[in-house]
């Protein structure tokens, strides 16, 4: 068991034997999964494999029935709620782009900025030069500098996805969970997103859930394939996509 405790000690995120059932349906079934600091990881798997449920558990939206979820080897995430977990440094991007449509791009980023989030701190908040610089920096990372004063509602689908990723960056998370970032994107936008995510992963860990195999190949990272709530295979994209079980359960369908 030395190897397991070693992986745990240097892990950023550590899921051990996590199970959860909804009305008898086992969404996760003994899932174990480790993300190391600075790692970019892709997760694939058929519909209903438990990808989104796993994210729900990590971010505190759902409580597991059994199993342990540790962040930085010390914090038990199953005891925390969404706001606590976000403040610990875990950011989450939803499948459907979720931005504040009636705010400008700039305001969206200002709200996401990692500053004190109490009622009175926000009532009397004033934009400091450092905060302004940080927002400018994120705007250029997500390629939206020219649309900063536009309402988020007026952005294209791809731009909304990027804005949401930008909001996660503003949160300064240690771990970023990204659910289907390129769904509905054009090929050019998809390629651009792969570059963006690789750039982001230089300074933090990123977990990407995606169906688009071309995109995952573009990312060129370690892949985990989930099926029926547990890990089916893990390794490089070539290793996983040649695994007969993966072909049978997912790719071959």
């Amino acid at each position: 068991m030395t190897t397991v405790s070693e992986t745990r000690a240097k892990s950023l995120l550590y899921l051990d034997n996590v199970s959860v059932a909804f009305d008898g349906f086992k969404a996760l079934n003994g899932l174990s999964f480790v993300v190391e600091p600075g790692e970019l990881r892709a997760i694939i798997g058929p519909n209903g494999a438990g990808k989104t449920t796993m994210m729900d558990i990590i971010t505190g939206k759902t409580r597991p029935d059994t199993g342990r979820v540790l962040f930085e080897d010390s914090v038990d995430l199953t005891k925390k709620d969404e706001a606590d977990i976000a403040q610990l440094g875990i950011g989450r991007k939803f499948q459907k782009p979720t931005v504040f449509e009636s705010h400008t791009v700039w305001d969206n980023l200002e709200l996401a900025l990692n500053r004190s989030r109490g009622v009175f701190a926000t009532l009397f908040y004033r934009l400091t030069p450092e905060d302004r610089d940080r927002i400018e920096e994120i705007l250029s990372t997500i390629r939206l500098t020219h649309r900063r004063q536009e309402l988020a509602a007026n952005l294209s689908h791809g731009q909304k996805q990027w804005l949401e990723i930008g909001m996660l960056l503003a949160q300064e998370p240690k771990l970023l969970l990204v659910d289907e970032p390129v769904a509905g994107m054009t090929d050019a936008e998809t390629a651009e997103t792969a570059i963006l995510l690789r750039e982001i992963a230089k300074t933090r860990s990123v977990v990407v859930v995606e169906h688009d195999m071309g995109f995952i190949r573009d990312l060129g990272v370690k892949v985990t394939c989930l099926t029926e709530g547990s890990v089916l295979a893990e390794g490089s994209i070539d290793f996983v996509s040649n695994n007969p079980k993966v072909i049978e359960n997912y790719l071959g369908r």
Partner: protein
Amino acid sequence: MITRFVLRALDGKIVVAIGILLAIALLVPALNLLVPLESAFHVPTYAVSLLGKYLCYALLALALDLVWGYCGILSLGHGAFFALGGYAMGMYLMRQIGSRGVYGDPVLPDFMVFLNWRELPWFWYGFDMFPFAMLMVLVVPGLLAFLFGWFAFRSRVNGVYLSIITQAMTYALMLAFFRNDMGFGGNNGLTDYKEILGFPVQAAGTRNVLFAMSAMMLALCLLLASGIVRSKFGKVLVGVRDAESRVRFLGFRVENIKLFTFVVSAMMAGIAGALFVPQVGIINPGEFAPANSIEVVVWTAVGGRGTLIGPIIGAVLVNAGKSYFTGAFPEFWLYALGGLFIAVTLFLPKGIVGTIQQGWSGRKAMKAAEDAEKGRDADVLPQAAE
């Protein structure tokens, strides 16, 4: 810190609105007291109180708009906070009657003597002191909102379920206040007031002062609400309205944000109720009626929710309409109100002010697009509605 908060609140439209409110706070009393009776510009005293009543309703609508228009909490029970503020003021006014009541008891209000009560219930203590009563105008609605919000927002009761519970809350309070043994005068409520701070309640001078106070309180609360919605907190509020889970996953405590707004709003509604009672001369459990709270929603929707000026305009217009209709065609008023709500929902979903604003920013955007086509630098882009 506070100065910055106030300065940020003073956006163009708000300055104009506050200016108008302060002007009518002076003008209406002047037209009532200084202009001779026979002049066409004379405002009769009954009209001063009627206008004062509209301003109290406007403040109530503004309070509702803060939680509904900005935070997305559709409260169908805001009339309860208004009525509680009104009862706190009513209790002070009852204690001021002293031995001038029908039964002449120096301490006990008439209804208690009538019920053969020997001493004042504990919760009536202190209401002979004006500052204490004014504190209660804020504390009682605020506390109820805090307790209600604490449980509702923590257990994430949302949308229509929350609306139904707020409706049940005001209904339960109505039934409770109807009971004689509650100690609030039962279905007759509290009335027959004589004096407020030593001034006769019925006198024209007092009525004018109450009117001016209502206008100034509305201006002050408008300033406060504007400061709130223009701060970063206000942007978070709109975020909660539009994408609550995103706000949560950004690390904000949504339940605290809602709770703060709900309590501030309930206190504003309490102030409105407290100013309302001496101007109409009575508070009774009918003010808790669920239909009253729903009417507030109609005023806000008509004026434009999510704008601060809209609810004020909506409350004044609808109530002016109500005064006219209930006088001229009493049997048609409820049909007119229902029809108005349907018409606004169908044709003006953003309300009067919201529609005007939309037209305005739409024109600005079109102009910007034209400029951009002609190759000019278009820096004028549509801004978020206030």
